[in-house]
């Protein structure tokens, strides 16, 4: 559906996007990740035909951004970062204006605006000017703006930034609901958003693509080891030395030992070994009590940090 190939964009001396290539299949919800200033927004601006790349192309189906800019724009709904809106316009006026600008046939404009008001639950604030709305409602108006022409492709640049947790949930639900029939690129640096809503993710850093895959694949690829926490009641020294003997444990750290006889350890295990069974058996054999045995899997956060804090070697 969307093919980005070798896209490069410079602003003066800095290269904002450097030979980025990826594909998005129809119906996919792609998470586009990266720290602030990594080139996410620039890439989105290129796909939406706001900026022209210095090099490389973007294709939507058979259409090329250089030759078929207007046709491509018709297919895309774009929610820019920081939800820019005309503050002195009324909500309805604004939606009518975008509907006209998006070439919705005259007879369908009113029903379409009504649909948008319903989908984005704008009924309560319908009579206000956009400038008087709260951040959450502005976000909904902006979302209505990008959905109004029922585009095949949605490009959402940080749709939940600046919202409170309830609003974030609402917007995510909405994205999921709409996303069933559409191809979506969701640009964000909030990782749980990707884990909960996206089918695939790519990570960009310093203008370059550093990872591409489903969220599970990305986590899998992480070099980090799995970490376990265990809390055992027993003589501290013996417990520690016995645990250390287990082959499935790479390293062991005593976190705290309280006076009631419990001690808590942080255990690092090799990637493909799970020491929990061994630990349990050991405790049973020695008649120790276990009150905690938990595993902390490497998450998307870990791989994100790993890929985007390391300075890239050329």
């Amino acid at each position, binding site marked *: 559906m969307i093919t980005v190939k070798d896209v490069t964009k410079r602003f003066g001396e800095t290269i904002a996007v450097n030979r980025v290539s990826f594909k998005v299949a129809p119906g996919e919800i792609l998470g586009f990740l990266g720290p602030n200033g990594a080139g996410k927004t620039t890439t989105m601006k290129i796909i939406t035909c*706001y900026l022209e790349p210095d090099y490389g192309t973007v294709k939507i189906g058979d259409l090329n951004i250089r030759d078929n800019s207007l046709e491509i724009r018709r297919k895309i709904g774009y929610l*820019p970062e920081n939800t*820019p809106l*005309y503050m*002195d316009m009324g909500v309805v006026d604004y939606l009518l204006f975008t509907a006209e*600008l998006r070439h919705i046939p005259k007879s369908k404009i009113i029903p379409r605006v009504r649909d948008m008001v319903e989908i984005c639950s704008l009924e309560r604030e319908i009579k206000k000017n956009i400038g008087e709305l709260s951040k959450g409602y502005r976000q909904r108006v902006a979302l209505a*703006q990008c959905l109004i022409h029922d585009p095949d492709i949605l490009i959402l640049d940080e749709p939940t930034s600046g919202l409170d947790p309830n609003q974030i949930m609402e917007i995510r639900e909405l994205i999921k609901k709409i996303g069933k029939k559409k191809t979506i690129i969701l640009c964000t640096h909030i990782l749980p958003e990707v884990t909960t809503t996206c089918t695939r993710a790519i990570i960009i850093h310093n203008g370059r693509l550093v990872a591409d895959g489903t969220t599970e694949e990305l986590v899998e690829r992480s070099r980090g080891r799995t970490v376990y926490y265990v809390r055992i009641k027993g003589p501290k020294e013996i417990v520690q030395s016995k645990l250390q003997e287990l082959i499935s444990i790479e390293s062991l750290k005593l976190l705290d030992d309280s006076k009631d006889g419990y001690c808590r350890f942080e255990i690092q295990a090799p990637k493909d070994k799970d020491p929990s069974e061994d630990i349990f058996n050991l405790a049973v054999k020695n008649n120790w009590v276990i009150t905690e045995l938990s595993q902390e899997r490497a998450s998307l956060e870990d791989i994100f940090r790993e890929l985007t804090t390391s300075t890239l070697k050329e």
Partner: protein
Amino acid sequence: MYNTIVMLKKEFRSYFNTPLAYVFLVAFLVISQWLVMRGYFLRGQADLRTFFSLVPVIFILFIPAITMRLWAEEQKQGTIETLMTSPVRDMEVILGKFLGGWIFMGLAILSTIALPLVTKWTAAPEVGIDKGPVIGGYIGLFLMGGAYLAIGLFASSLIDSQIAAWIIGTCICFFLFMIGDPFGLFSLPQPLVPLFQYLSLSRHFENIARGVLDIRDILYYFSMIFFFLYLNACILKTRR
């Protein structure tokens, strides 16, 4: 064309969404009418010569105030992103913004209609007033204002600060207004004088305001308008 009309409607209405339109109209009327009327009865001439010599100068300050917001605000607020990712050509948007402003300005010019009526009433009944210069003057104002408007719109596309856009617009308008002034032409090398006279916004206005509607003057204003709208499109293109 459809897109241009959509933009035109939106821009024209947005003047009235804020107090800007009302403040502008009131200020323009009060200032221009007062400056004209204070000497009207002393001169004892039932014509609008003062009006048509003052308004082009007042417009240098007032017209860029209409246009300063048009691109600068879009850039500052970021709304330019949603606008320019809509299926519209740059020139359609520029034309829409320009025409919206032109109609608004036409409204401002029309609101001075009391003046010609006053001259008509105060003129000696047996002499009446010379209609040619009045009609010509109004057409000239409209055309000249259009050129100012195109310049102001271009200035607004250069920068995302409204005040800076206003100052730049005013400076360009003033420059193009005064280069035809005999006072400045005096010091120029002889071969350049006709060129400067031709480029000057005020020279062509003087012709029309005399009641002489020459196709060359009209063409001049339209080419000025299209030149600056084209420059505006170039600026938008370099931003891409």
